[in-house]
């Protein structure tokens, strides 16, 4: 599943966030895996998570299952499983859709905490040695962190114009020339709206330059 990263980049996406506190986030694969693995509709319904976010949390679980199944059917992956290929390919069409039908498919992911006598941690550890899987896990973790923040805001927020800890503006510069700007509705009613927009404009300009700087470094290493 080796791919040329630069050929697969279609857009540069710059987000600006006002945060209560800038903290160092540490990525521990097992903790993230466990948190997403155990997400289920029934558990979410019993939790305090806002109902508007529950389906988005559930999608994280679907995406984790989907990523694993794609690795199982990829002959270039170390997790490739030839005996299950036909069966998994049938399920992939359901897993790739956002509707609820995917929840009826029995999970193929190894349990984070082995329960049965024949289950061991080795299958989970094997999963964490696959860098493609770790990449997906990292991305899902970022989305989960954003959802957790959003959930906290929805519960704690005393007024609607609070933008702390959520992305208030995002700009996507696409290769086909399109530029898409997304803004949080909450900034519209704020007195410091112009300052926030100016900040995002600055972060977009420099963000694109920062990314270009990183690409130039890599090209200096490999291009010749």
């Amino acid at each position, binding site marked *: 599943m080796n791919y040329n*990263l630069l050929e697969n980049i279609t857009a540069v996406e710059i*987000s600006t966030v006002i945060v209560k506190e*800038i903290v160092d986030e540490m990525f521990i694969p097992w903790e993230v895996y466990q948190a997403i693995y155990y997400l289920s509709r029934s558990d979410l319904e019993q939790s305090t998570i806002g109902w508007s976010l529950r389906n988005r949390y559930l999608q994280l679980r679907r995406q984790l299952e989907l990523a694993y199944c794609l690795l199982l059917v990829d002959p270039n992956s170390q997790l490739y499983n030839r005996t299950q290929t036909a069966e998994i390919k049938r399920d992939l069409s359901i897993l790739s859709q956002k509707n609820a039908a995917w929840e009826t498919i029995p999970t193929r992911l190894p349990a984070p905490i082995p329960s049965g006598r024949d289950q061991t941690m080795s299958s989970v550890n094997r999963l964490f040695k696959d860098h493609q899987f770790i990449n997906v896990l990292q991305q899902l973790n970022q989305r989960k962190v954003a959802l957790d923040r959003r959930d906290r805001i929805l519960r704690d927020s005393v007024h609607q114009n609070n933008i702390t800890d959520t992305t208030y503006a995002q700009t996507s510069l696409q290769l086909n020339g399109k530029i898409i700007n997304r803004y949080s509705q909450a900034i519209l009613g704020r007195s*410091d709206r112009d300052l926030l927009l100016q900040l995002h404009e600055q972060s977009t300009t*420099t963000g694109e330059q920062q990314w270009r700087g990183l*690409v130039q470094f*890599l090209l*200096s*290493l490999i291009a010749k």
Partner: protein
Amino acid sequence: MNAAINRVLNSCIQIKEAKISRNAKVPQQIYFYLDSALLGQIEQIRQNSQFTLDPANLANLRYYLLFNSLEQIDSMHHWRSDSWLIGRSPLVFSTNYRFGDRQQPLTVFRSIIDLEGKISQQIQQELLQNPQLLARLSQVHYWLILAILTQLPFKSINQGSRLIFCYHGIATIIICLAVRYFFATNYLLWIVSGLSVFWLLNISLRKVIVKQLKVLIIYHLTDGFLANSLRKRQIGLKILCLVI
């Protein structure tokens, strides 16, 4: 004047490392430590002078980028080593600012740059209460990152190309003389063999030896014996410049 300015700027850059085993540390993120006096100095420097990274910072920052981008390099160049691919992360640049009334500096800006094209700029909310300081800090934070990133790409050292050219020339002359010695009358064979030898050496040296050497140096810079001290990293990066 310029040396003093560079010393000031270089002194505010720190790389935070995380210990992953008894002997190994990996770079995690870059911090700029600022206070009001330093902020004022950098604003002046920005307008009048150029900022040059000192050799230690240059080596450490290149190492930081190399270490955290290796997975992407591997995906583009198809280099293999599973041990390289664990624990890499996006680049993180943070600015810590010490407010006059506080003992501890506060992280006020953070830029998270992912080669996949996702960039997140985080701003600490207290700064919104002071738009003037916010504007000053944002300009300095972004300027420092760009000033660093523009200095990091590897520039091939001409001596490296000259060495390869000399090696080609000497080897070609020796083989041509040998051909001339054994086939003294056949000038056509002499010319053809000379050109062939030059072409073969060019392919073998550039495509095989140099590429393998580059892979070997990068491997040792990130996970091997060149990784564990600044001096070794500097040597490794110098050799890398020679073979790029």
